[in-house]
């Protein structure tokens, strides 16, 4: 068993590294087949030809392609994505704070989605066919059909514009931009700003895992051990809890592709609420043709998605000892 486990680990790690290189190469190629001059952004008309050349040299854009590739990979692996064309500062300084801002909404939202989906899904599934089940599934599924940004706009109009309870966007009052992460997380104002983007994400993501959990527990209900627990005289709630625990694995698998999807959804939420996250930065960079920021933002998101896949795969093996690490 341990032998096949280590084999599995090695195989997963190799494929992770392979994907990483594939992604970097894809980014490199994509941004070089881009029509138009990537330096056009740099030449604002006031630059002389000499300073333009100097700029090109700065960004390594004058070297032959294969050398650019080597330089690109080496820098990328060190987290160095060059200088932003727009901000004129290192890309890392733009990207990392943005990434943290995105994760501040996304991680708690997904975590809460998992918890609610686990409990609510098992409750409605256990009571399949009742009124509770009908409404308890109907509402989340209807919410699910509303595109992110429309849901966001609706919340924005109701809670910010009409009721005036919450701010309309951004991450804090003007002047609060230089707060550290801990300062933010301990200030009540921050939560006022985070409330709407967080709620949007929560409402949007809740339906899928909840329905999944519901289906699982409906299947689990029929199993012999559930009947045994019932016959033993356990409280129905205790029986349900045991069945729920046994139907949670697919929920964990669901989380894997969900991280990627959530990054996508987060982009729209960030645009609606002007949340200075990595998704909004990516959109802005795309509009400004700010190549270094766009590729770094994309790369960071992709790496996080890959890492999550890796971790969930490993966790899956940990939670379910029945899984064999043979060929899948």
């Amino acid at each position, binding site marked *: 068993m341990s032998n096949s486990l280590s084999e599995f680990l090695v195989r997963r790690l190799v494929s992770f590294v392979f994907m990483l290189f594939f992604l970097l190469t894809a980014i490199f190629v994509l941004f070089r087949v881009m029509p138009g001059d990537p330096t056009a952004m740099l030449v604002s008309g006031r630059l002389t030809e000499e300073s333009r050349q100097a700029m090109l040299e700065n960004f390594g854009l004058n070297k032959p392609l294969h050398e650019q590739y080597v330089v690109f990979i080496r820098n990328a692996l060190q987290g160095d994505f060059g200088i932003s064309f727009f901000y004129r500062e290192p890309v890392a300084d733009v990207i990392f704070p943005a990434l943290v801002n995105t994760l501040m909404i996304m991680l708690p939202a997904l975590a809460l989605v998992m918890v609610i989906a686990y409990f609510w899904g098992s409750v409605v599934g256990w009571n399949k066919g009742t009124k509770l089940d009908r409404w308890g599934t109907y509402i989340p599924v209807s919410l699910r*059909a509303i*595109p992110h940004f429309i849901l966001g706009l609706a919340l924005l109009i109701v809670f910010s514009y*009409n009721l005036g309870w919450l701010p309309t966007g951004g991450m804090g009052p003007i002047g609060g931009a230089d707060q550290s992460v801990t300062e933010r997380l301990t200030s009540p104002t921050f939560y006022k700003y985070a409330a709407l983007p967080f709620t949007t994400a929560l409402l949007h993501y809740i339906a899928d895992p909840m329905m999944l959990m519901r289906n699982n527990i409906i299947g689990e209900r029929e199993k012999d051990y559930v009947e045994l627990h019932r016959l033993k005289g356990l409280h129905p709630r205790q029986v349900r809890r045991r069945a729920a625990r046994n139907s949670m694995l697919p929920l964990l698998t669901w989380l894997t592709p969900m991280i990627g*999807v959530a990054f996508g959804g987060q*982009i729209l939420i960030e645009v609606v609420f002007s949340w200075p996250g990595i998704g909004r930065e990516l*959109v802005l960079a*795309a*509009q400004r043709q700010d190549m270094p920021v766009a590729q770094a*933002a*994309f790369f960071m998101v992709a790496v996080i998605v890959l890492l999550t896949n890796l971790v969930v795969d490993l966790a899956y093996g940990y939670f379910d000892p029945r899984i064999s690490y043979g060929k899948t």
Partner: protein
Amino acid sequence: MINVKKYSDSASRARRIAWDFFHPVFEDRWGKFAITVLGVYVLIGIVGPYLPIPGPFEYLQTSSGQYAQLEPPSAEFPLGTTYLGYGVLSQTIHSFRTSLTVGVLSAVLVVTIGVNIGLVSGYYGGKVDTVLMGLTDMAYGLPFYPMAIILIAIFGSGLYTIAAVIALLFWRSVARVTRSEALSLREREFVKSAKAAGSSDVKIMYYHLLPNLVPLILIYFVFAITWGILLEASLSFIGLGDPDTVSWGLMLHEVFGSGELTRAWWWVVVPSFTLWLFIWSLYVVARTLEDNATVSAKGGA
């Protein structure tokens, strides 16, 4: 997973399989409603641009000769006007065609790519399968919207680019499901006898296997239309859509950008509602088809 009756004889049965599979949608109350909605949407998409209404980018004027900016809905301006004086009704109606075009175009591309890759991968197995599924796994590793944004930034925005991007990113799920179906189908008697009778691989795949995949393809076709419409709307909303083609996403982008969210409620509500209803109806149809596929599997067919 999806497991419907297996028809063994020929491709000419594809239509009957499709009907067997499709008719429960018409028996379900919500399904009927959704199908009606979709019918109306298709109708408006076809005739919309020929209706006697102003163009989507035509400035409207009030009776006193002024530009009709942010006029609330009235007899003169049904559904009101936008900040620049365009008719919300006219823009909404012209958007039907945009959405339908993107949706259907991307669905055709998604299904074509996905089914072919899945079929070849599942039928041949072995090294072909390893390579193609490796490719699929990689496609799964890509975060969807970020990738789409990058591709749009590089190749420029337009309806065809958007459809192509959707196809490039969504074939993966279709390929995976098709493959697993093809894997189980190829072990069945009718494939073995076709092989024994000397049918070529291509004939077996497209003549004997493919008709059995029709229900699956239909489900994914509907899902792919939904993805296409959602993606076009989202990209347009964040300002990366085709600026010359009116769409619900573009309308929402403009109302959001103009800062008139509260005042011009008609400008927000109308495109939001049409878009939501479209997606909701497609979901209902796709879900009913999916349910039906699993139910018939349990029914021991």
